[in-house]
């Protein structure tokens, strides 16, 4: 087991109250596995991922939990050691590659920086390695592109450069925070293929954060669904797509437009909106939007329970779905 997260909670302490962005989340990841973390915007996916390397922006902070990475608890290691893990053992790529690259330096400069930091390469060797990495991410004419500034590259190229930076230290885990959201569809496909290719090549696990079910279907082996800071369903990709157990997951899958579905069947979303984190509904936070809710749903949040050997669900009514 590469990563094991136990009872992780990350709260934001605002003037208006405590915002529980990640609330008692537990999950695990195996080596070379791709786990997708899905959910609507603002459900705590990104904060959960940032919590892993303790990078939550203030006034947020991890309030409890344990994060075992390679058997070490990342929340109790020294700051120095955590720094070595970041970018060393855990790489990260971002939603908007254009703003995640420093505008005043060349791509090559930024890759060389990581290589010197984590692999201790000398300058000229790091430069050669940077060209190799750019080539590995499928950037044409890498010798020329190392000297390019971020604004001279297209969005797809920028994302490739960012991926090159993330894989430069040969990480065990790659956190991909909406890697394709800011790109157009053809480029999305290329980036997804690239990530899959690199995953095999470098034997790394990928934690994929996305709300794009298409990308999930392409890449993930397992899927975790998040809602209001909690994981509400966890299953293998096939199980999840074939037979969602949580009404929220069902709603998510139903809201994907399908070609050839015919005009008779209208596209149905999930009624209502994501609730305000500061005044969450009582009981199951999904109950106001749920067609099955009744009785106990209003009183207590359902625990995430094993419903078969391979999957978990946090719903009292899952047998009805």
């Amino acid at each position, binding site marked *: 087991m590469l990563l094991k997260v136990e009872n992780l909670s990350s709260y934001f302490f605002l003037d208006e109250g405590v915002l529980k962005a990640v609330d008692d989340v537990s999950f695990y990841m195996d080596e070379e596995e791709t786990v997708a973390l899905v959910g609507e915007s603002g459900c705590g996916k990104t904060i959960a991922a940032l919590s892993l*390397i303790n*990078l939550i*922006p*203030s006034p947020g902070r991890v309030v409890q939990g344990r994060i075992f990475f390679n058997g070490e608890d990342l929340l109790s290691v020294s700051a120095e050691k*955590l*720094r*070595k*893990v*970041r*970018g*060393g053992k855990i*790489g*990260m790529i*971002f939603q*908007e590659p254009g*703003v*995640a*690259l*420093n*505008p*005043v*330096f*060349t791509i090559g400069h930024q890759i060389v*920086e*990581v290589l010197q*930091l*984590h692999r201790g390469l000398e300058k000229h060797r790091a430069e050669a390695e940077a060209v190799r990495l750019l080539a590995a991410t499928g950037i044409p004419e890498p010798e020329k592109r190392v000297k390019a*500034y971020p604004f*001279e590259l297209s969005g797809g190229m920028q994302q490739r450069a*960012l991926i090159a*930076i*993330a894989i430069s230290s040969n990480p065990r885990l790659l956190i991909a925070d909406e890697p394709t959201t800011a790109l157009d569809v053809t480029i999305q496909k290329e980036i997804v293929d690239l990530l899959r290719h690199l995953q095999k090549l470098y034997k790394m696990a990928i934690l994929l954060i996305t709300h794009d079910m298409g990308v999930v279907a392409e890449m993930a082996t397992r899927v975790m669904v998040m809602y209001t800071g909690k994981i509400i369903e966890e299953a293998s990709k096939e199980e999840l797509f074939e037979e969602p157990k949580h009404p929220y997951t069902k709603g998510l899958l139903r809201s994907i437009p399908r070609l050839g579905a015919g005009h008779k069947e209208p596209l149905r979303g999930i009624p209502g909106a994501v609730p305000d984190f500061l005044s969450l509904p009582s009981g199951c936070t999904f109950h106001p939007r749920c067609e099955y809710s009744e009785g106990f749903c209003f009183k207590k949040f359902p625990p995430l329970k094993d419903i078969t050997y391979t999957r978990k669900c946090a719903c009292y009514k899952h047998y009805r779905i």
Partner: protein
Amino acid sequence: MKKRRRSRDLILLGASLLPGVGHIALGKRSRGVRLLVYSILMVLLVFWRWEKFLSVFQNKSIGDWVAALFLIISLAACVAFSVWDVNRLLSGTVKKAQEKSPFQLARRRFKENRLAIISLYVIVIMYIIGILAPLLASHDPSAIDDVLETRYQSPSREHPFGTDEFGRDLLSRSLYGARVSLSVGLLAVLIAVSFGTIYGSVSGYFGGIVDNVLMRLVDVIIAFPTFYLLLMLVGIFEASVFFLILILGFTSWTGTARFIRGELLSLKEQQFTEAARAIGLPSRLIISRHLIPNAMSPVLVSAALMVGAMIGAEAGLSFLGIGIRPPTPSWGNMLSQGKDALLVAWWVAFIPGALLAMTILSFNLLADGLRDALDPKALMRRYI
């Protein structure tokens, strides 16, 4: 064919031992002429002041040593650069520059600004003259002989700028004064900008309580009137050039600090900072390698402005008699001496005043040019 080319290359390389000749032959005229003119002037200076040049090395004055060493080293550097650059041009490793890096683009825009280029030349020449003052000066700047005979002589062949109330050669004094005034300006700004940048970036990056404490301290320093602080310090310690540099430097860093802090407050929220943290870069390196370079160009502009202001401040203090003390010449105290004789001998005050005005104006124009070059949007706003 190949052999002929090789021999041509060797001849060119040999020729560029006389700096600039190779460049001119290769069609890089302006660079070649600059190198050639500078080297010829320097060599002429050595022959013209041969006695003085030799005597420097028996001398104990640091200023004289600096002048002589600067001359020798700059000449050697010219020769070395000339040969290296011609070799580079010949081997063809210089690609037709695709001007694209922000720095190159800024340099190109800067070159288009004629006023800024002229002021840059004025400033560079002033500094060279200041450094070489001991070799250039025809008289000892503080030698007083036969005062009644030589005082208040109007400009003449012997004294191109005239003489002052003690019969001292004003040209020589202006040259030495340039050294004092210019070095005070540059070094004080160097202190102010580097300290202010570090201080402001720490404050802005860490934020919260650190920021609060550091910025309140800045408020205290701003609230304290610099002039009285100076008066007090000069009263306690003896005013020297070095001391004046320290005081001016350490009382004027607050503007830079506040500016950098503001920039960092916004830069640190941008995602590339988060990305830099995610690759495990320590805060020290995030600040120095990622954030400060992003905030640097306005600082550069204000630094150029500040040099002019510092030279003015030094002159003002010396004029009032609390800066550089006579007989060490600085433009400020020369001005102060001249004011008493304005009706008898106008040149005593006019010359340092004109030099001051020219230098400060040059720095202001340079700052203007830098701003236009570094921030093209500002240039556009000006035309709209």
